[in-house]
């Protein structure tokens, strides 16, 4: 058999392989989606039939009131995470600092904040600070408490991220005559940020849901609204389910953007 005669047969085999791979991928996606639909559908049916049930009337009447809280939830979460990132950066530099006072302050911050419940911290900021003459509105108080809390956890993330950048990078920068601070800012930090982005994203998803705790100081976010209308309309389960669905959708939307950001940041990775 000559090469020319072999060619069509081989092309056929390659086509078959590609087609089979495509079938397998489609089959995988189908099964994947099916599992989600079945389970989420079952939960929906369960809620629909549970207790007094969820009615379309209730969803249409009260839904908008609850969903409107999403704005506050997003506002609180975003501002808090920005505050947390700032604190975490300072905290991480402190934890790595050769300056004893700075280092000790950062360590105390992490230890104290990670060692006490977030709910207590929220109460402390809102009800406690006024005794020190600092009176904050509910929203700034909630943001301050959330930001401080997450800043402590993220301090450890940033510290690990900075330490994960090889020491040789700092040396290479210094060998080019860059002072240590400039080398840190321009060379080490950008690489550390790339390393910690997935962890920050993870924390932000957690933050979206932990922001529900500020409902306890009467910030009118998702959960507060759900509880309020649920109680007055005697539809607690239904309104909580609506709030839960909104939280879930928010995290799905955010996860999508996070994935894109990570892919963009992966440019230039080793």
């Amino acid at each position, binding site marked *: 058999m000559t090469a020319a005669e072999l060619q069509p047969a081989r092309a056929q085999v390659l086509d078959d392989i590609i087609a089979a791979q495509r079938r397998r991928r489609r089959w995988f996606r189908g099964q994947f989606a099916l599992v989600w639909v079945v389970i989420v559908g079952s939960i929906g049916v369960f809620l629909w039939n549970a207790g007094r049930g969820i009615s379309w009337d209730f969803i249409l009447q009260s839904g908008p009131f609850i969903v409107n809280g999403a704005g506050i939830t997003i506002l609180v979460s975003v501002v808090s995470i920005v505050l947390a990132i700032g604190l975490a950066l300072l905290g991480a530099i402190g934890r790595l600092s*050769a300056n004893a006072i700075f280092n000790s302050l950062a360590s105390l911050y992490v230890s104290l904040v990670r060692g006490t419940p977030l709910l207590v911290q929220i109460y402390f900021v809102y009800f406690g600070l006024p005794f020190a003459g600092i009176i904050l509105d509910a929203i700034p108080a909630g943001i301050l408490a959330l930001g401080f809390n997450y800043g402590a956890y993220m301090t450890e993330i940033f510290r690990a991220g900075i330490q994960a950048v090889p020491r*040789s*990078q700092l*040396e*290479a*920068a*210094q*060998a*080019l*005559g*860059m*002072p*240590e601070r*400039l080398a840190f800012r*321009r*060379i080490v930090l*950008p*690489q550390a940020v*790339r390393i910690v982005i997935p962890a920050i994203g993870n924390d932000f998803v957690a933050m979206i849901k932990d922001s529900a705790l500020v409902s306890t100081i009467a910030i009118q976010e998702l959960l507060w609204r759900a509880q309020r209308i649920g109680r007055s309309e005697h539809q607690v389960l239904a309104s909580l389910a609506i709030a839960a669905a909104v939280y879930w959708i928010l995290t799905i939307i955010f996860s999508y953007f996070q994935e894109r950001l990570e892919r963009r940041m992966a*440019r*230039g*990775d*080793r």
Partner: protein
Amino acid sequence: MTAYPEGQAPPHIGDVIVRAQGIEKYFGENHVLCGVDLDVHRREAVMIIGRSGSGKTTLLRCLNFLTEPTVGSVEIDGVRVEAEPLRARSRAHQEQIRQIRLRASMLFQEFGLFPHMTVLQNCIEAPTRVRGISTDVAVELAHKYLDKVGLLEKKDEYPSRLSGGQKQRVAIARALCMEPKVLLFDEPTSALDPELIGEVLKVMEELAHEGTTMIVVTHEMHFAREAADRVVFMDGGVICEQGPPEAILDSPREDATKRFLRRFLHG
């Protein structure tokens, strides 16, 4: 011990530009450098050889204070810095060290390119932020030196897309963009696949022949023979023997040198 026998210094070399005196280094109890004096002249290519653990890399790192010597002084192009292990982090000392580093650029085994910057950004980062030259001028310089190492067409790539040999050549271009007086090479080909070593050595050889002052720690004996004005053999933290490449590599006087070369050249 003089660098060259009386009247045998290569004619192209100039006055002394690097002078290391009495360099000693302890890592804990471990006496790694036991008093090294080294003079390097303008336009001279000095290759430091020796088995691992002989202190040659530590000596090179002491020259630009990436490793702070325990005792000794380094003078490069008129800037003299005394080892101050107790005040190593003081601002004045760090500034002096920076002045040394601006005159002596170092190249590393692992290249040290910044992975989050393109090749061009790698080359202009330090010139613009440290030397304070404008971006336009820095880009022009970068083009010139990237062209010199044959990688101008890669200027917009990220380092992850380059081969090891290309990375080291970019690192050389980046170092040249600082327009240093001396280049320090720390085993620049040790991390490379064998087939990529040649392209880096070729660039280095060109630089040597153009009269770039360089100090190279290397295991490439063939390269040392071709490109070196002087070969320095280190053993046990001191300079054991030094001289023109033929003298050291072909007819060494010291037993330690003979043993090293025998083991090195014949497995």
